[in-house]
């Protein structure tokens, strides 16, 4: 067991626990975006930033990837952390303002406007879909491509991947386009973009072993004789 201090409270956690998990165990709220239970920590969005150490040696780290260390002093909501977090949210808002998830986070942090050049990209490169595809769907059909400002997510050569089972898991976990993939709660869907997509499981027959992210599955229930 490892004992560390989070916001002045001592907590003992098992070896291998991340600072984020320890803080959540104590009930301290840390906003996350690229983090998702069941997927490996990635540290892409930096929203879960916390301050570790004391005095001039204190530094900001992403809590989702930082392992708990004995005697570690963590502050989850110091002035420095809040300023950094707000800046990150503003930048996210600048790149992807239409995302409901980012909007919710921004309003929670009382951000009503941002001061950067407005873009309307549909991806924040959080890598949730990439990890979902690889780790939960065992497909590895999509991945990161290119680098720098040309970085994007997609299939190799932009052609439909042979290993893709069209399970829809990537759309389901996407924080930027979550509006158009509320299969399980169709009454909440606003944009209707998914109306053109047939539920993936309807094509179940074409795949030997189709795993599905939806449980219980609406489409399968409908299809049952």
């Amino acid at each position, binding site marked *: 067991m490892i004992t560390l201090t989070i916001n002045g409270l001592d907590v003992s956690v098992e070896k291998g626990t991340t600072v984020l998990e320890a803080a959540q165990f104590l009930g301290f709220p840390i906003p996350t975006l690229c983090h998702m239970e069941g997927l490996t920590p990635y540290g892409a969005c930096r929203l879960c930033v916390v301050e570790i150490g004391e005095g001039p040696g204190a530094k900001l780290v992403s809590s989702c990837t930082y392992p708990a260390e004995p005697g570690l002093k963590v502050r989850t909501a110091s002035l420095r952390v809040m300023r950094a977090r707000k800046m990150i949210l503003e930048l996210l808002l600048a790149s992807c303002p239409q995302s409901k998830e980012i909007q919710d986070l921004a309003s929670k942090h009382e951000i009503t406007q941002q001061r950067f050049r407005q873009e309307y990209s549909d991806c924040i490169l959080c890598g949730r879909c990439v990890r979902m595809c690889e780790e939960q769907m065992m497909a*590895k*059909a*999509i*991945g*990161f*491509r*290119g*680098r720098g400002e040309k970085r994007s997510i997609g*299939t*190799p*050569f932009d052609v439909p*991947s042979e*290993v893709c089972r069209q399970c829809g898991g990537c759309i389901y976990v996407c924080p930027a386009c979550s509006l158009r993939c509320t299969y399980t709660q169709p009454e909440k869907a606003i944009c209707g973009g998914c109306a053109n997509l047939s539920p993936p499981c309807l094509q179940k027959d074409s795949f030997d072993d189709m795993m599905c992210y939806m449980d219980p599955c609406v489409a399968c229930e409908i299809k049952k004789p």
Partner: protein
Amino acid sequence: MDDRTVETIVAEHHGSLGGMLSILTAIQSEYGYLPEDALRRMAAATGESLTDIYAVVTFYKAFSLKPRGKHLVSVCLGTACHVRGAPKIAEEFIGQLGIASGETTPDKEFTLETVNCLGACALGPIVVVDGRYYSNVRKNQVAEILKRTREGLDQPRENRRFPLSVRCPHCRQSLMDAAHPIDNVPSIRLTMSWDGDSQPLYLSSLHGSLRSVCERETPAHSITVLACPMCGQDLVGDSRCSECGADMARMTIDKGATLMVCTRRGCAGRRLNLETTPAEAD
């Protein structure tokens, strides 16, 4: 496309993914670029997912998914080259080749690319064509660089041409022969011996020209003995050819300068030594 090549390359790298970059480099040097088909076969042969391979390929600028031209022109746009006017050089290349950066000319001759630093900032603006570095490039040199590349890099690089007048270092008699002009200037007459056979050899006295005339051609790359036709002494000097390592024949020019000519037939090794040594000075 040879169906075995990719599999052979993978096998050479022991089929492990630790060598993904070396496998990709090998495939690229095989085809000149990375064809989609080759990458798919590589994925199958290594057992790695195509997504991962594609991520690596698109990450590194050294890899190209599009066919490249015969000659690769890299214009440096790093900070030092940039302030020395590299953007104008790049514009000139774009204008003369009629393609944008990253593209290949329709005749598949040239691929133009801009790079961010070549690490030779003091030589900027710098342009690399087929691994040959051109430093302090000015706009009016662009056409010359492209022309030279088109003609082939094996051509002699010396473009100053001037006639020389040489003498035998032993008997100090002139070796010039106005009766056998080559390149419209008097030639240098020597006696060439090879395999017990001696004959006159006429070399062009034009510096930069490699033309020579003899009656009976010796086999290519045979090492001959070059002697003075007047005194008959071997002209062999104490230096060796930088191109092939054979002995070089030495002839004297005025004021003690020397002309060295490789004794190997067909070798382009020639050196003009303009340093004056007291022993040879008149």
